[in-house]
């Protein structure tokens, strides 16, 4: 391995941490310096992520760019990094959203420096989770990504007033943090139990995966089927909550609406993927038989997610809540795809994670831009924005069309693959999933019609359109949507070895 290949993964973790440390040291007045430094760091992260994407060898199964540093001998914890196909895609997603996010975050006026510090801690946590192949560090970074959330939402977020009740930002912040940490309790227990049961004295995911596979005819002890049946639900619910698994999704709309724009972008765009990624990485790879036992439950819950999220989105009057519930709905496709345990379905799930990540980030960026200009998100108050905000409208329509699965954009390919996988395994649930896609079209088109092209009241004639900087950031997000939509080949090639790894574990 070349020097770059050896160090690239750890750099993706160290760089945001270093940026945060440098920002802490900057004087409080140095707002412009903080912004430039952050955007430069975001760009470096994007370049690093692209490097990982291109250097990854698509013809080889298993983990690549592996790096192992001993960390804590008594428990056999190593700082063990590596990526498989799915992880590479997630790294790329993080890079894209982080870069766009740091640009958008320059709009923050209050305590800009502290905002960026917490944002980079969040980014470090997200990268760390995707590239860690040691269970301990996987969990470490997973928790690290939660640490800054409370302050990011509580200090810089926005409260929502409904007709009969309020949702203060503290409520959203506390709900999001407590629910995610409570779910991590299950993951924590599962990790300790697996570590003890395997008795290997290591948290290494490749080693544990090999141990899990050695069961049955292989001769080794493996995890017994009973053990897997009991432990898998811990993993499924623990990680599933972060992916917005119904009925534990309620933190997601409240939290994402209360969060400031960049945090919504990163959290809904990237962090929710951690949940689905955890189910694939820990659940499928280490507990394959448990996965088979529980797949139908996951499948049904995923389908409920799709339908329930879509119906809830239709009922919302707040623009951001519509997007929040649409995330819940779209994450349902990911869960469905995973539950198919079919090569096409899992590939679709992975691609949907990427596609939804970029699309949601774009959604939240646009909604944030509208809110900053009009100070309302009420869809009955906003109207006819298209005449004054051409660019904002264009970006919202692109995100909306991706969301409802227009061919030529990334959402279409991803959802199509999920549906093919679903029809091969559970046709009835597949049909329900397609109905969910139709519902998406209803609420998206209704929104576009009312908010952007509806009758102009003249109230919003004075507002500005996007600045060049914001437009650039959103353009960064549009590129992958279109590229995946028209030329998905390279992305599917990257996912393939990752899916092979999982399928080998499942014995399919």
């Amino acid at each position, binding site marked *: 391995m070349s020097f770059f290949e050896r160090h690239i993964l750890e750099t993706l973790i160290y760089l945001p941490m270093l940026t945060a440390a440098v920002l802490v040291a900057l004087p409080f007045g140095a707002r412009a310096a903080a912004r430039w430094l952050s955007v430069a760091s975001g760009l470096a992260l994007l370049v690093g992520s692209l490097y990982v994407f291109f250097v990854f060898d698509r013809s080889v199964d298993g983990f690549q760019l592996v790096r192992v540093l001993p960390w804590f001998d008594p428990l056999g914890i190593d700082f063990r990094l590596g990526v498989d196909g799915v992880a590479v895609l997630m790294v790329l997603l993080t890079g894209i959203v982080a870069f766009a996010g740091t640009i958008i975050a320059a709009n923050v006026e209050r305590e800009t420096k502290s905002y960026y510090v917490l944002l980079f801690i969040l980014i470090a946590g997200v990268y760390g989770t995707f590239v860690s192949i040691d269970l301990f560090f996987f969990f470490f970074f997973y928790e690290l990504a939660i640490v800054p959330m409370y302050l990011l939402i509580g200090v810089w977020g926005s409260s929502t007033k409904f007709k009969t009740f309020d949702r203060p930002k503290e409520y959203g912040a506390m709900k999001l*943090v407590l629910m995610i940490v409570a779910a991590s309790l299950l993951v924590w227990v599962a990790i300790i139990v697996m570590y003890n049961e395997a008795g290997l004295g290591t948290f290494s995911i490749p080693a544990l995966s090999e141990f899990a596979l050695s069961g049955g005819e292989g001769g080794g002890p493996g995890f017994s089927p009973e053990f897997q049946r009991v432990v898998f639900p811990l993993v499924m619910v623990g990680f599933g909550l972060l992916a917005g698994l119904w009925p534990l999704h309620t933190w997601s709309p409240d939290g994402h609406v209360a969060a400031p724009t960049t945090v919504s972008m990163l959290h809904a765009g990237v962090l929710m993927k951690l949940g689905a990624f955890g189910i694939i990485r820990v659940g499928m790879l280490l507990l394959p038989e448990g996965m088979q036992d529980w797949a139908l439950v996951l499948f049904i819950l995923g389908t409920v997610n799709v339908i329930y999220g879509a119906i809830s989105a239709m009922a919302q009057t707040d623009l951001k809540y519509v997007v929040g519930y649409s995330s819940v709905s779209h994450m349902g496709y990911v869960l469905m795809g995973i539950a198919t345990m079919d090569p096409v379905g899992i590939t679709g799930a992975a691609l949907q994670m990427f596609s939804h990540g970029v699309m949601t980030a774009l959604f939240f960026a646009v909604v944030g831009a509208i809110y900053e200009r009009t100070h309302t998100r009420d869809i009955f108050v906003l109207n006819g924005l298209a005449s004054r905000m051409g660019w904002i409208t264009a970006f919202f329509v692109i995100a909306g069309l991706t969301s409802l699965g227009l061919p030529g954009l990334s959402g279409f390919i991803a959802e199509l693959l999920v549906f093919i996988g679903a029809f091969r395994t559970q046709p009835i649930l597949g049909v329900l999933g397609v109905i969910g896609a139709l519902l998406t079209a209803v609420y998206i088109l209704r929104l576009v019609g009312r908010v952007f092209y509806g009758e102009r009241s003249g109230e919003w004639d004075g507002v500005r359109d996007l600045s060049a900087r914001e437009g650039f950031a959103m353009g960064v997000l549009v590129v992958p949507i279109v590229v995946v939509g028209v030329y998905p080949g390279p992305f599917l090639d990257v996912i393939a070895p990752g899916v092979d790894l999982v399928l080998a574990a499942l014995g399919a």
Partner: protein
Amino acid sequence: MRVDFSLLLPEMLLAGLGFLVLIVDLVLPQERPERRNKAVAAVAVAGMAAVAAMALATAPDRTESVYGGLLFIDAYALLFKTLFLGVGIAVVLMSVEYVGRVIRHPGEFYGLIVFAVLGANLMASAGELLTAYIALELLSFCLFVLVGLTRGDRRSAEASTKYILLGAISSAVLLYGISLLYGTMGTTVFREMGPGLAINFSPTVIVGFAMLLAGIGFKLALVPFHLWAPDVYEGAPTPITALVAVLSKAATFALLLRFLAEVSTGRFDQWQLALAVLAAATMTVGTLTALVQRNIKRLLAYSSIAQVGFVMVGVVAMTEAGANAVLLHLVGYAFTNLAAFAVVVTVEAKTRKEEIADYAGLSTASPLMAMVLTAAMFSLAGLPIFAGFITKFYLFTAAADAGYLWLAALAITNSVISLYYYLRVVREMYISEPEVEPERIRLSPSSAGALWVLLAGTIAVGVYPGPLAAAVDAATDALRAYAGGA
């Protein structure tokens, strides 16, 4: 019997330092109290640092004991001595301003802290029950006086009275337990009490051991012996609250762990279950009661009760991994809790306020203090990158490994619940709008430096625990049950 007195040099010097501090206070001119205060504190800090350096430099290569096993001079004791002296230094540093404004008796204050550290050091070295008892009393007596040192403050007087009365009863119980064990075993030296304790289930041994546990449980504030803790924490001068929370707890754990490891090399099943129940009750009651506290010192009191419950999880395991985890957690906990108390002490010295609601606007009044307290809260809640994450992970993994999965799962649940009340403090500092525009708080270089050091320590244990884990492992190898590695 020949005794090599050079082995006891650190303890002797520390006792001398205590008197020196008192004398320096006496001879310095009375008319400039501020300078006298600083000078006495400087003597105490420099002296304790020198003793720590000397103890490290002259440490024997192998385990030594004096007076036929009464005191051990080994790696285990050395680790704790270094920790306790560090705690003593940190407490003195954080209290300089507080003493100047509130206490006004620097000599007694710092001198008694030095003696308390001496008592704690002897507890970590003790290899015999009566020696342990005397060391524990030395520590306790210092604390009784220190708790009541704020003259004219009724809460302080009440706290001190409660502490003395209940402390005396617990000492009596402890002593009675020791006498019962002596009656059966004919010895109070840990190593000679031997396996008899583990397998002998005569009523005398059971009652004696239970009384011993009750006495120790009082010092640790284990549920149901915890009722004194909140009042004492609230009433005591705040730096002394830190001393009670960190020094006295860690010293008692040092004693308990050595006792259990020296007395029995085998398993201790019956007593393990009793300890497990105590641990479960302690962390659950501590966590649930902390949820409703409004005073920051009471919050930290209940939080420390919960933390003691977490440490007990590692004690219950009675494996080397469990003992290692306890030591590692105690070190991380010392950094974390001292960081939290350093902020609370400074805020109180500057504003005379100690309600959680009074922390509104601290993020503008003093960004550094708000950041340090936030880090401490996150570390206590067990979040990365802080010490609490890895040390709790280690504790609970060790317990699960020893067959106490239910206890580990309960501990993890409590740990999650505790996040709620720690976040409340964070919310006050950063999110709540203060009623009056907060005035900017200027920190002296020494308190700012102490805050940075404690913050760095909390993070260092969290991100790079390797060297500390090696030191801890060497320390527990000195105990009989865990000799020769895992």
